[in-house]
C-alpha cells in the first residue's frame, strides 16, 4: 500500500501504520460534510452549537444555532446547573464488593457500616464512605524484599539477637485481615504501611518477633522451635493489636527463614558435616567389626575342627599301633622317610672317612630358583 493512498474507502481509510481511526499527518483535508457520530471533537462541536457557547469560530453555523448568541443563555444555565447537581448527587452512590465493608460517616460522625452491594448515601460533604476490604488476606513481609523470584535479604530487619547472644537471620510474613472495620478506620492513625512508613501492624510484628527471638536460644530457633516461634509471635501480636483496638486479626505468622547469618553459615554447615562424618566413622567401624568378628569365629571353628580331626586321626593310628607296636612304628618310620627322601635331595655321606668332602652346595641349591617360591 503506498504511503499517500488516501483514496481507499470513504472514512475507513487505513494509514500506513495499519491503525484504526488515528490517521497521521498524511491526512487529507477534512471532507466538508462531517462524518456522523463517533468523533469526540465533532461531538463537542455539536454541543457548542446547540448551547451556542464559545463562539463556535470557524465551525459551520448552518442550521439551528444561527444568529442568536445571547438569547439561549437563560435556558442553558439551569440545564448546566441540573447536570452539576445530578453529578453531585451521584457522588452519593457507591459500590461495595464481596468481602468489603463500607464505613459511612455523617458530618464526621460514624453512622453505619454496610455490606456488599450498591448503596446510596448523602452526597459528599454530608456523608462520606470509606470502602475497606476486610476478608481479603493482607500480607506484610519482614526481613527481606522480594522482587519476583529473587529474595534479597534486608539485614537491618532480618538480623536479630537471640537470648544466648547469637545473631540469627529471620525472614517472616504476617497474614492478616480486618475483623472490626470501625476500629480499623477510627482507632489507629497508621494501621498499615504506606510507602516507606511502617504501619502499626508491621511495627508490632517486628517488635513481637524480636521479643520472642530474644527470649530463646539460637539452636532451637533454627531447628526445632520454629513452630513455637510462629505461634508465640502470633499470640503476642494479637494481644498488642487488641490492646490498641486496631480491629486487625492476625491469621498466620509464617517463618520463611530462620538460619544463621550468611557470615557464619559455613561454620554452621560444618557442624552438620561433622555429624555426618562421625556417623560415617561409626558405620565404618561397625562394618569392620563384622569382618573382624566373623574372621575370628571362623578361625576358632577351623582350629577346633582341625584339632578334632587330627586327634581322631591320631586315635585311629594309635589304636592300630597298640595292636602291633613295633611293626607299625617301623612302617610309619620307613614310609615317612621314603616320602621325604624321595622329595628331598638325598646325599649319603660316610663320615667315618675322616676327610671332609667338598660338597657343591651352591650348585645344589641353585636349582631351586627354577621352581619359584619353593615347592610349598
Amino acid at each position, binding site marked *: 500500500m503506498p504511503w499517500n493512498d488516501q483514496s481507499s474507502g470513504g472514512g475507513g481509510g487505513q494509514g500506513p501504520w495499519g491503525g484504526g481511526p488515528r490517521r497521521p499527518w498524511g491526512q487529507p483535508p477534512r471532507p466538508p460534510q462531517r462524518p456522523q457520530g463517533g468523533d469526540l471533537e465533532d461531538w463537542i462541536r455539536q454541543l457548542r452549537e446547540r448551547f451556542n457557547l464559545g463562539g463556535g469560530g470557524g465551525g459551520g453555523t448552518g442550521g439551528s444555532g444561527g444568529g442568536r448568541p445571547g438569547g439561549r443563555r437563560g435556558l442553558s444555565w439551569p440545564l448546566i446547573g441540573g447536570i452539576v447537581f445530578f453529578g453531585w448527587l451521584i457522588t452519593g452512590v457507591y459500590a461495595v464488593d464481596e468481602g468489603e465493608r463500607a464505613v459511612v460517616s455523617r458530618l*464526621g460522625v*460514624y453512622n453505619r457500616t454496610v455490606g456488599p452491594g450498591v448503596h446510596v448515601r448523602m452526597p459528599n460533604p454530608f456523608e462520606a464512605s470509606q470502602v475497606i476490604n476486610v476478608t481479603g488476606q493482607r500480607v506484610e513481609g519482614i526481613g527481606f524484599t522480594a522482587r519476583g523470584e529473587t529474595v534479597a535479604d534486608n539485614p537491618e530487619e532480618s538480623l*536479630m539477637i537471640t537470648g544466648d547472644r547469637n545473631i540469627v537471620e529471620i525472614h517472616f510474613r504476617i497474614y492478616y485481615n480486618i475483623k472490626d472495620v470501625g476500629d480499623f*478506620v477510627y482507632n489507629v492513625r497508621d494501621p498499615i504501611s504506606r510507602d516507606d512508613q511502617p504501619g502499626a501492624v508491621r511495627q508490632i510484628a517486628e517488635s513481637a518477633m524480636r521479643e520472642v527471638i530474644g527470649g530463646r536460644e539460637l539452636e532451637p530457633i533454627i531447628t526445632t522451635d520454629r513452630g513455637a516461634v510462629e505461634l508465640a509471635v502470633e499470640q503476642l501480636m494479637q494481644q498488642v493489636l487488641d490492646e490498641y483496638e486496631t480491629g486487625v486479626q492476625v491469621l498466620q505468622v509464617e517463618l520463611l527463614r530462620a538460619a544463621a547469618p550468611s557470615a557464619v553459615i559455613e561454620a554452621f554447615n560444618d557442624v552438620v*558435616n561433622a555429624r555426618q*562424618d562421625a556417623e560415617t566413622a561409626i558405620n565404618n567401624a561397625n562394618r569392620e567389626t563384622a569382618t573382624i568378628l566373623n574372621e575370628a569365629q571362623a578361625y*576358632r571353628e577351623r582350629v577346633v575342627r582341625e584339632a578334632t580331626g587330627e586327634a581322631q586321626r591320631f586315635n585311629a593310628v594309635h589304636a592300630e599301633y597298640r595292636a602291633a607296636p613295633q611293626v607299625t612304628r617301623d612302617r*610309619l618310620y620307613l614310609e615317612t622317610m621314603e616320602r621325604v627322601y624321595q622329595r628331598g635331595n638325598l646325599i649319603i*655321606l660316610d663320615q667315618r672317612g675322616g676327610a671332609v668332602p667338598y660338597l657343591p652346595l651352591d650348585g645344589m641349591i641353585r636349582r631351586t630358583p627354577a621352581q619359584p617360591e619353593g615347592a610349598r
Partner: protein
Amino acid sequence: MPRNLPLILGIAFAALVVLLNSVFVVRQDRQAIVLRFGAYTASINEPGSNEPGLYFKVPFFDNVIIYDKRNIGLILEGQSIVPSDQERLIVDAVVRWRITDPRRFYQSALTEDGGEERLKVFTESAMRRVLGAATSDQIISGRRAELMQAIEDDLNRSAATELGVRVVDVRIRQADLPVENQERVYERMRSERQQVAGRIRAEGQRDAQIILATARQESERLRGEGEGERARIFATAYGRDAEFAAFYRSMRAYDTALDADTPIVVPPDSDFFRYMQRRRG
C-alpha cells in the same frame, strides 16, 4: 434584575464565606479546641467523650485547632544505650501515643509535629533512665516486656501531664549490639560452631575406635577359645601315649617340614640304611 446581579452575587459570596467560617466538623477520629482571640474556650470530642459532628463558631474571631484522636506511632531511630553492665546496645523503639488533653497539648506543643518532637526527647531520656538501670541480658531477653512497661509508666508520669498525651505503649523493636561488635559476635559464633563440629568429629572417632577395639577384643577372645580348645583336644588325644605321640607327630612333621629338593645329608649308618649296611657288612 441584570443590574442587581453582581450585587446579589457579591452578597451571596460573602454570606457563603461567613457561613463556611462559622461552621466546622469534628470527625469521629479527631478532636478540637476552640480559641477566641487565642484564648482557650472549649475542647470538643476529647478522648473520653464522644461528641463528633457539626459545630458552629463565631466567624473570624474563633479559631479551631483540630488534632488527631487516634493512636499515633512515633518511631525512634536506634540510639545507643549503656546498660548497667556497660555493654553498649543499640535500641530503637516505637511509642504509641494519643493526645488526651488537647488544651495542654496546644499550650506545650502547638502542633502534632511539635508534640512528636517533644515526646521523642522525653522517650529518649526515659529509655536511658530505665534501660541504664537494667543489665543488657535483661534488655535482650529476660525482662524486655517489664522494661517496656517501665518506660511507658515513666513516660506517663513525666510526659503525659507535661504534654497532655497518654502513652499507650512503648515497644522496643530492636536491642542489638552495635555494628562494630557484630563481627566479634560472628567470630565467637563461628568458633563455637567449630568447637561443636570438632567435638562431634572427635566423638565419632572415639566411638569408631571403641567399636573397633571391642571387636578386636572379641576377636582375640574367640581365637584364644579356639586355640585352647585345640590344645585340650590334642592333650586328651596325645596324653594316652606320650611316647608314641611324639614319634607319630615327628613323622608328620618331617613329612610336612621337608619339601622338594631340600638337600639332606645322611650317613650310611643311619637307621634308614640299616639293612643296606648289614648286607654290605
